[in-house]
């Protein structure tokens, strides 16, 4: 089955999503939003895998996406747990207020 959307367009979309995610991680101060941005980056790479897999007619792209999905689920659970602990200890989710290790 031939897709009507070209691979370049999908890759561009994935790249844009990834860039948005990075920008979010860098710009946002709130840890929850940073975590969300990381999720966007993960999904951008997942999208790139799916598109590449369908372009070459190989199942590997989808396999990799399943992996990423599983990893993202684990990451979110650990990340949220950490955020809860941080909020308990510091009463704040501002990443700039939380910096303690500086040379």
């Amino acid at each position, binding site marked *: 089955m031939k897709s009507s959307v070209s691979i370049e367009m999908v890759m561009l979309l994935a790249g844009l999503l990834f860039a948005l995610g*990075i920008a979010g*991680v*860098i*710009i946002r*101060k709130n840890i929850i939003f940073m975590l969300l941005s990381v999720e966007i980056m993960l999904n951008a790479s997942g999208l790139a895998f799916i598109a590449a897999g369908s372009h070459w007619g190989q199942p590997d792209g989808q396999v990799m996406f399943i992996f990423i999905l599983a990893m993202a689920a684990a990451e979110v659970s650990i990340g949220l747990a950490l955020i809860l602990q941080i909020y308990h200890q510091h009463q704040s989710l501002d*990443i*700039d207020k939380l*910096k*303690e*290790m*500086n*040379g």
Partner: protein
Amino acid sequence: MDNPLWLIPALPLAGFLILAFGGSHLSKKMIAAAGAGSVCLSALITIMIGTKLLSAGPDGGTYSQTLWTWIDVAGFNAKITLTLDALSLVFVFVITFIGALIHIYSAGFMEGDKDYSRFFACMNLFVFSMLVLVLADNLLLMYLGWEGVGLCSYLLIGFWYENPANGYAARKAFTITRIGDTAMAIGLFMVFYQSGTLVVADITAKAPELWQQNETVVTVIALLLLAGGVGKSAQLPLQTWLPDAMAGPSPVSALIHAATMVTAGVYLIARMHVIFELSVVAQSVVAIIGAATLLIAGFTALTQYDIKRVLAYSTMSQIGYMFLALGVGAWTAAVFHFMVHAFFKALLFLAAGAIIESLHHEHNMFRMGGLKDKMPVVFWTFLIGAASLAAVPLISSGFYSKDQILWYAWGAGGGSPLLWAVALLGALITAAYTTRMMILTFWGESKTHIGHHPGKRMTIPLIVLAFFSLVAGFIELPHNFGHFTLFSDLMHKVLPETILRTNVSSEWMFQLLAALATFGGIFLGYFYYGQQPQRIENLRQNEMLAGLRRFWFSGWGFDQLYDVILVKPFVFITRINKADVVDKLYTGIVSVTHALYRLLSRTQSGSLRWYIMGMVIGAIVILGIQMML
């Protein structure tokens, strides 16, 4: 191992090891037994092997014993091999026999010292090193002994290290002899580079084919070896350390700075005589250095107050005679004078030590006086030693050896009337300062109270040495009476015979002149110090003579000269370079890294968002580079 040659150096080494590692747990008796006993045993074995070598020795008259291979790399082979021939036998005999007597004397002399075991440890190590020096069959092993005796000399001059002046004297001796040692090391490199071997026998065999007569390279080698000998033997211009070396205990002065170590230069030149024979220039330099030293040291000895300094300068002067003999080609005469000198100079130093000890460490001769009747044993033995030093004709051994040198200074191949005249003047001065020393010390009125008399352990070595100072000369009588040449017959197995010039007049006249010089010197000394001491006072009033006296007293100003041309500039340079220019490079590296550390530690801000930014920029840069290539 069919003969116990290796035991001769091994025993003092064992003594050193016992005393160095266990000395603090031993009683004084045990220390003396280990220290003196080991050297006495060595002396006995030497006498045993020596008689065997002389009576039933192998062909060529050499015992050789290879213990093990020291270095074997890329064609260079150095073995630990001991070789005993006639020349080394004389040296080994003197080292062990006189060494043993001095060790026995030291057992009494150092009784009250708290560092009894350290003293004997150093003395034993010295005897070991000196034996290695003379028994070595190659120049590298000899150099090991050469440096070993230098180290022991340093340790023993500075033995009473609590007085900073003694430490200074020790450092001075070490530094000045090091100049000679360095020259000698360069000489050894050149010998090896030219001949490919450092074994003495091989060099002796190869030298005539390898080098032309008077070739430049052989002259340079000979002069470098001579510089080594000059440093060790306290000859001009490296002589200034010896008078200061008297800071050590008297037995040390007797053993190291009179009998053995300072004659190492004589041994070196006699051992390498083949090289010196190939260079007329080097040989004349040896003779001139000897003649100049004996005269300068003699004049200096005339003016000294300190009894040990008189003896130190007379040692320099007597070694000057040996160098003169070597320089004119009278090899056996030099070794003969070495042996005789070792006996009487060790005796004089030991007797002087006994006097100094009894007079509460009084060194000044002008505060002694009147000891003739109070210390008879010391007086008679000292008198015998002094007679030998002054070369009193017929009865003293010093006459036979010194007369031979005087005769050869005129008559031998390298001799000349000028050298002879200098040597004769030296003999006159020697007799004069010896008489002066005798009169000031033993005659006149007593000026210092005697504390305690020397014990048996100190007087017996004196008597034995006095006996040898009397008879040692009789083994070699002049050609014109007796013509008894036991010593030179023995030596000629190793050293070449002295070639006389063709037109030499009768030997009688020279002996008469030498005797006249001795008596003239004795008379001068007696006239000015014994009979009419007020004349000396009158001479002192004279402005010019007083200036001359000060000049002589300071050892002809050599110390001041070296101070101005070497020490002062060096100290000046070190002062302006206190911050150390070379060190700047390393401190520079330190400060650059420190600055970089401060710069980079700023980036460790702890701000997570900056870190991510850094990572993203890094990734973009790497991707960008990849795309561009």
